[in-house]
């Protein structure tokens, strides 16, 4: 597509804010694949890549959980590509026996059919007690009644040699709720996403390992009106396969700032270490520019491509005073990335072209 060397690019589509593209079950994957082809190197997060039973791997795409993405954008960690991770499986003690077996069999299937290295398996000493909530903005959030149990299980996995952690927590079933019905029909916010992010943020930040989460839920009754964007979540009994595949090649998180709270295990930067200074662009929904990673990039002067992708928020470039390159869709964003990668000024592609003086 382009002869220019790769332009490392961050793709952020925040979870739990009802983005028209990326607010459902891995429905931003086609956009991520396109942006990876355009940039040659895409760093993005599980909400973009996870389609429950559906997934895609691409060596140009780096799967980085949200809190690690924030730390990468701040320059406190770098990302080191790996051939494989050993993915420990952390199961919530609140999962019923049959649902637990379903998850274990997904892990076995990924070992047998995909060749992933998975294990050990640790169950929390107490149920994690996940609850869901919604912020004043309409964004989904959530709580964890027993965060210490999550961290202790994560520490056991790390001590046993896991280099990445897949977490499965029992989420409350709400099969009769209006919010779930709206989500399944393509017009609502993913009510689970905010709590999922809290779980993976906590674990990744405290352990310094790649982490991602899959909710354990009872199977839903068939809905013939199901929106295609939500279909990935209704193909099986679990949402775990995409998490295991994503983590299996997630980059190592390498602390960069000696003296910071992340300095344990500090290593000098190596040649293959990807750092924020190399990032050439960040792509985010035009109405959701107020997240930590996007702001950190903008404050570093990294070009910000704001894509039309309606959601429940209206935190725009104008509201925040951020300079952006506007894109009407992700295909247009891919064009802008190619321009940046080739050293073509995006302004030269617009008309009218203002005079210099």
């Amino acid at each position, binding site marked *: 597509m382009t002869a220019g060397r790769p332009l490392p690019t961050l793709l952020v589509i925040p979870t739990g804010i009802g983005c028209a593209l990326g607010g459902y079950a891995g429905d931003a994957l086609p956009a991520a694949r396109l942006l990876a082809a355009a940039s040659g190197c895409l760093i993005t997060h599980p909400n973009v890549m996870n389609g429950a039973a559906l997934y895609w791997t691409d060596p140009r795409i780096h799967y980085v959980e949200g809190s690690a993405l924030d730390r990468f954008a701040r320059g406190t960690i770098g990302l080191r590509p790996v051939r494989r991770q050993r993915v420990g499986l952390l199961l919530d003690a609140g999962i019923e026996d049959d649902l637990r077996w379903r998850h274990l069999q997904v892990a076995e299937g990924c070992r047998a059919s995909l060749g992933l290295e998975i294990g050990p398996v640790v169950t929390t000493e107490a149920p994690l007690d996940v609850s869901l909530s919604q*912020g004043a903005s309409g964004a989904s959030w959530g*709580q964890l009644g027993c965060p210490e149990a999550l961290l202790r299980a994560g520490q056991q996995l790390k001590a046993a040699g896991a280099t990445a952690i897949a977490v499965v927590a029992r989420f409350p079933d709400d099969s009769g709720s209006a919010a779930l019905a709206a989500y399944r029909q393509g017009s609502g916010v993913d009510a689970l996403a905010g709590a999922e992010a809290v779980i993976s943020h*906590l674990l990744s930040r405290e352990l310094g390992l790649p982490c991602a989460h899959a909710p354990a839920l009872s199977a839903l009754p068939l809905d013939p009106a199901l929106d295609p964007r939500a279909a990935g979540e209704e193909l099986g009994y679990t949402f775990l396969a995409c998490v295991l595949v994503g983590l299996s090649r997630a980059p190592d998180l390498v602390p960069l700032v000696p003296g910071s709270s992340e300095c344990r295990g500090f290593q000098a930067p190596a040649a293959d270490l990807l750092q924020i200074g190399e990032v050439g662009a960040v792509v985010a929904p035009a109405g959701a520019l*107020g997240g930590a990673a996007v702001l950190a990039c903008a404050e570093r002067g990294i070009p910000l491509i704001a894509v039309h992708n309606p959601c429940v928020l209206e935190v725009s470039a104008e509201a925040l005073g951020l300079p952006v390159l506007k894109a009407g869709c992700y295909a247009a964003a891919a064009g802008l990335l190619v321009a940046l990668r080739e050293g073509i000024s995006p302004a030269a592609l617009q008309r009218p072209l203002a005079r210099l003086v």
Partner: protein
Amino acid sequence: MRLQPVTLRLQRVPGPLTPQIERALAIHGDPLRWAITAVEPGEEQQLTGSVLLIEAVVLA
């Protein structure tokens, strides 16, 4: 350790936003995840003086 949801309104002052937000959240705990979820414009649409609605979860 307790996870605490926080919603706060922050009047913007000149300078980068991230340190302003993190200082405001630090009063409530160690920020785990946050986002600006709404912006109310300042007088005459000025950025300085605009009010940011922040939603967050902190470790308290």
